[in-house]
């Protein structure tokens, strides 16, 4: 019950403090630009006599993959920004005192904030990916059914980032927390590339370092799940889908399990961190 009150409060706060408006404008602007880009791009490739139908499919697939990757990046940043000061910021401002003195447990405050922000991210991810898939299929006539993995992978990754950032904010101030989480995120991102290089060079140490970064923060590995689906959609040979947008080795199914456990641990760590903290 109180969990829901806090979640609703968090949602309301995002709307009132114009976070939702700002994010809508930015993501809306990006989608508009993307649509224009796809339209002109597709006009060129569809009139190019040298391109076969299957080559066209591959290029359209690439465009969708790149767009989805960008949305994933924006969603991740949004998750970090939403949660970066969620606990420490409220303690520093003094707004936590009256709330935490109410008959509401600290776990409910943490989970309520997590849930409120997650609902917001669900709407953003759902709407923006749906628009993107629709735009691409309307312009190119190519409906990418497998692209629907992407919003789920994004949401899972965003949930993990939210939980990690909230956990950080029970112990660190907003700035320090932002630096730590964003660095972790960047390391995981680069780790994916290192993993690919390790695989390419057939070097197990480099490969394992890449894997280790996925365990440090499994956001990149989750994206790879969606990336692999998107790559299949374009019908490309796996050799053509390297680079930052996708992965040579789509993570195995138990990566999902690891990510799930990771999420629960991050939430537990956040709750414990807040419970021990003097306000």
């Amino acid at each position, binding site marked *: 019950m109180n969990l829901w009150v806090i979640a609703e409060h968090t949602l309301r706060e995002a709307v009132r403090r114009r976070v939702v408006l700002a994010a809508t404008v930015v993501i809306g602007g990006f989608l508009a630009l993307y649509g224009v880009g796809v339209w002109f791009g597709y006009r060129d490739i569809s009139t190019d006599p040298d391109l076969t139908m299957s080559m066209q499919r591959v290029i359209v697939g690439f465009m969708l993959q790149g767009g989805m990757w960008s949305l994933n990046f924006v969603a991740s940043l949004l998750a970090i920004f939403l949660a970066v000061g969620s606990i420490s910021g409220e303690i520093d401002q003094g707004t936590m005192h009256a709330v935490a*003195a109410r008959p509401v447990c600290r776990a409910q405050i943490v989970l309520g904030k997590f849930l409120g922000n997650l609902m917001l991210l669900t709407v953003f991810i759902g709407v923006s990916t749906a628009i993107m898939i629709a735009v691409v299929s309307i312009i190119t006539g190519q409906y990418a059914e497998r692209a629907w993995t992407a919003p789920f992978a994004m949401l899972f990754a965003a949930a993990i980032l939210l939980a990690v950032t909230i956990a950080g904010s029970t112990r660190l101030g907003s700035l320090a927390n932002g630096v730590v989480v964003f660095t972790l995120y960047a390391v995981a991102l680069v780790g994916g590339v290192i993993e690919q290089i390790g695989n390419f060079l057939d070097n197990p140490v480099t490969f394992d370092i890449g894997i280790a970064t996925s365990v440090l923060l499994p956001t990149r590995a989750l994206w790879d799940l969606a990336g692999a689906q998107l790559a299949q959609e374009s019908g490309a040979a796996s050799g053509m889908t390297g680079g930052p947008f996708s992965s040579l080795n789509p993570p195995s199914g138990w990566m999902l399990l690891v990510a799930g456990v990771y999420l629960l641990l991050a939430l537990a760590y956040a709750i414990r961190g807040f419970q021990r903290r003097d306000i």
Partner: protein
Amino acid sequence: MDQAAIRATGLRKSFGDTHAVRGIDLDVPQGEVFGFLGPNGAGKSTVVKIILGLVQASAGEVTVLGHPAGSLAARRQIGFLPETFRFHQWMHASEFLDFHGRLAGLDRDTRRKRVDEMLELVGLAHRRRDRLSTFSKGMHQRIGLAQALLAEPPLVVLDEPTSALDPIGRRDVRDIIRNLRAAGITVFLNSHLLSEVEQVCDQVAIINRGRIVAAGDLRELLAAREVELRLGEGAEAALRASGLQPVSEQPADGRYVLTAAGDEEIARITAHLAGAGVSIYEVQVRSNSLEDLFVRLADATDQ
């Protein structure tokens, strides 16, 4: 009503090397207005935060109406105005109170009724639709008080509730506190505004450097007198014989300072000395205002 509203035993709290609270015992009876006084940094707010479970004690035990401090059951009994009185700036006044009503577990109808009553009580009914970001400092403190009283708690904890208020606001808060007492509600009032405490409190505890240096019924504490005497031969022996312990003495000049619980006791002391044949050259009685008491105790324990 045998249960204390707040009972603390052996309470301690350290923040790293800072010993904010160093062994406090408190007994706040139900239905009284209890003043908790002390200079800046004495540890008042820390004790309050422990009572509310915002801060975890390093040692000792605190109960609120029989429930361990910080438990949900304990927090259900308390309305709290924090000393910082900072609230979510993006909320409207009535929305803010409604949010706290929900957290306190009030149903919709009760909330609607109580929110209106509280806005009326603190004189902000005309600003109910305004965002808190448009409020002045004093208005923030008023809405904070409304928030504390919203759920009709049996115990109200106010940490310097008038620090931002104008004289009229202070008088209003005094009246509100008196009304709370009349309704049988216990008020724990943190303050260093001594006149305010003198006007509303039944009992006080004075805290300095994390320890309680005086506690008890306010009127008894204020009735205490300090008597400076200049006496003739045999004074020392006469004082000892009657078990009177001077707080300071300069026997060479015949000067002794005693404390007395009231005027009657001063009369008894002088009669006793005269009866023992001691010449009394000078009697100076200093009555305590709360301010004297406060400054003297703070100075004495700062040594």
